[in-house]
């Protein structure tokens, strides 16, 4: 009785010592040791408000999706239809939303009916209601009134077509003091309803900082080797234009001044890596996706001097955070075995 209970316990639970040995960063350490230590509170609005992030990107020349317009008050809601008339696909999102809440993606439309990537059709009234929900603060932190942003639809790189179900796969890179320390790609699935949110069932794929190769996949925090819907082998995934992407991520440090930052990017077919949004409180699931704790990498970066240029920081990260040769060889063998 007792032994079977202990057995079950040890199958599902681990000890603080084992986590510490792996360098896993927990919520409490993330909050105290990194977020409140390196992120100045008054800089938060820069990333919590996507409109401000967008304007900053334009100022600093960082690539981000085209902005079609914004809706700031209830009487402007009806203007959305005119705004998007000449755009085949578009995205409506709350400026102060979090966790991907309240993002409406329209692939194409005929002015009356709007088609979501899932094929579901919504009417003009549905869309306008969505906008007015955003304005009233339904999706914003703390329920404060918000602004709706209308952006051009990203035509994502075909390299990922086999790895996604409906949604756009995005790449999250944790940037610490300007150094990219860990990266993952989030693949939407049927379970996640086309959203790239890990706790809703999207697959997280850890990416090697050195090369952009996939190192591991997880769904619901448990290992996953193939995309659950397309069946495509996760280890065959490699992000192209990896250096450009890391430099885009690292550049966000100068742009915002935030020391511990989650950068969310997508690869556009024509324009390459683009910055979607920034997060001053990035989650810890990236450790699960990489099968590795963040702590050792963060401590190495903490010992680096300030004022290093972007390109050097990226080179430093690619050198130190690259997976060892055997790991890459293992992945290669796994590929050959297929």
């Amino acid at each position: 009785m007792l032994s079977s209970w202990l057995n079950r316990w040890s199958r599902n639970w681990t000890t603080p010592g084992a986590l510490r040995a792996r360098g896993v960063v927990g919520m409490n350490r993330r909050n105290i040791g990194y977020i409140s230590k390196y992120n100045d509170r008054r800089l938060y609005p820069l990333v919590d408000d996507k409109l401000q992030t967008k304007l900053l990107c334009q100022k600093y020349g960082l690539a981000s999706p085209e902005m079609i317009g914004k809706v700031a008050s209830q009487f402007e809601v009806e203007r959305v239809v005119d705004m998007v008339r000449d755009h085949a696909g578009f995205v409506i999102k709350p400026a102060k939303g979090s966790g991907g809440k309240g993002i409406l993606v329209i692939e194409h439309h005929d002015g009356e009916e709007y088609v979501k990537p899932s094929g579901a059709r919504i009417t003009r009234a549905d869309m306008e209601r969505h906008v007015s929900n955003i304005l009233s603060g339904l999706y914003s932190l703390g329920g404060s009134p918000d602004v709706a942003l209308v952006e051009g639809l990203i035509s994502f790189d075909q390299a990922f077509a086999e790895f996604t179900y409906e949604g756009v796969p995005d790449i999250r890179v944790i940037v610490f003091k300007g150094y990219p320390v860990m990266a993952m790609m989030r693949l939407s699935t049927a379970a996640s309803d086309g959203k790239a949110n890990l706790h809703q069932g999207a697959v997280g794929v850890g990416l090697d900082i050195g090369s952009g190769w996939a190192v591991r996949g997880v769904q619901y925090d448990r290992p996953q080797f193939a995309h659950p819907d397309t069946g495509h082998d996760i280890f065959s995934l490699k992000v192209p234009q990896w250096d450009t992407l890391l430099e885009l991520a690292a550049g966000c440090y100068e742009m915002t001044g935030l020391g511990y930052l989650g950068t969310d990017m997508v690869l556009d077919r024509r324009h390459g890596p683009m910055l979607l949004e920034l997060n001053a409180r990035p989650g810890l699931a990236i450790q699960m996706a990489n099968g590795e704790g963040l702590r050792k990498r963060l401590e190495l970066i903490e010992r680096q001097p300030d004022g290093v240029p972007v390109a050097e920081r990226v080179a430093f990260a690619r050198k130190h955070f690259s997976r060892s040769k055997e790991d890459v060889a293992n992945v290669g063998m796994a590929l050959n075995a297929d």
Partner: protein
Amino acid sequence: MSRFAFYLLVGLLMLIGVGLTAYRHISFDVPWVPGAQQKVWDIEAQVAFTATGGPVKASLALPENQKGYSVLTENTASSGFGLSYLDDLPGRRAEWSIREAAGSQLLYYTVTMLESDNATPAAIKRLPAPQEVSWERPYDTAAAQVIDQARERSADSFTFARELIKQFDNQRQGENARLLLTQFERPELMLRLLNEAGVSARLVSGLSLEDGRRRQTVSSWLQVFAETPQGNEAVDVEAADAENINTDWVLINPETGKQGEPDNLLLWEGRGAPMLEVEGGVNSRVSFSMIRHNEPAAVAVRNKLANDELLNFSIHSLPLEEQALFKTILLIPIGALVVVLLRVLVGLKTSGTFMPVLIALAFIQTSLVTGLIGFLLIVATGLVIRSYLSRLNLLLVARVSVVIITVIAIISIFSVLAYRFGLNAGLTITFFPMIILSWTVERMSILWEEEGPKEVLKQGGGSLLTAVLAYLAMNNPWVRHLTFNFLGLQLVLMAFILLLGNYTGYRLLELRRFKPLTED
């Protein structure tokens, strides 16, 4: 702030807190644990009335030694009024007087009563005689029939009174009973009927003692005597020619007919006299606040005296009504501590950070099981109705306002239903904080739409678990005793929470979440 200054602050808070606590224990003899000591009740009567401008005389009945309770100390507060204690028949009274007063007036009387099994009750000095009662038609025949029926089924005064009240039971009311109830208040009616039947009885006022209650009122009880004096004249029991008079009596609840005195009932007025009489004022009323202490009686008396010193800034020197309020307020940090522990050390998700503490406070009023059922009923019904609202395309503030009204409607309906089915516990559902519940419904509903029912169960379950644990902590008699009697502990709590706010280790649930990381 440097780490050193932080730990200095924590250490300082800890030191002051422990010091204050030890000081109170040593110099005031306040015990660490409740229960071992005698229970002492501080009860405050607040007399309020509006003076009409002329001379005012206000007379309040005062409690006497009685079964289960004895009077330790008493004092009054009333600016400008003259005061005298009257000890003649019927019963003790305090009489305030003033030559000229206008506007609203407040008079206070505070008594400290010791709860003890061997208190000697004040003797019955006078056996009251049945009063002459006059009835109008057709109430006289109805009364006569009711009395006849009760007399047939009874053997003596006590059983007669019980049988009489039974006829007015809600389920078994006859035509006569219903007719009589249209004309008279129930306690008054019972007294009239008993007197009409020649049974000695009177209405007395009792106060239900419950720790930390405010703005309580007295309830009427029937005091029924075993023996009726001859010749319809009140008999002086102590007079020489009145030996062997049986002064046995019982208390009967005029609403239910139940005989006997509940344990927590204090007979505030036991002589059949009015509670409060005011001459020269209108709108007079009296309300009560009470607090229970656990301490040796001698200490209670000493503390009472210490409270009268000019330089006493402790909470225990406040009027009782405010003290009773603080008894609850001082528990909130305990609830906050439970929330901090569960979030920082365990990693439990709740909907709304401190919402569970407010729910736990409501549980204290409703009792746990009733509270849980009530909470689940309200939130579940609220969610169903809210799911319809989400189709109406409303602005957020308007929608939450509609949810508030809906929650109030649900609470009203459940109260009425509970009352209809005789579940009096269901009435306490009104103690729930309605605006907080509405936000809970709103948040849960959005969560349901965005993340699915699983996440709702997870966060709802987390909130409820937190609320139950906070309730268990806050309702623990030991915790209640310590928080109220040792204010220094609040500083210790604060120091402890400061330390927790600095904890960078893993949360309990992270040991499960990150388990796969340690596998390969």
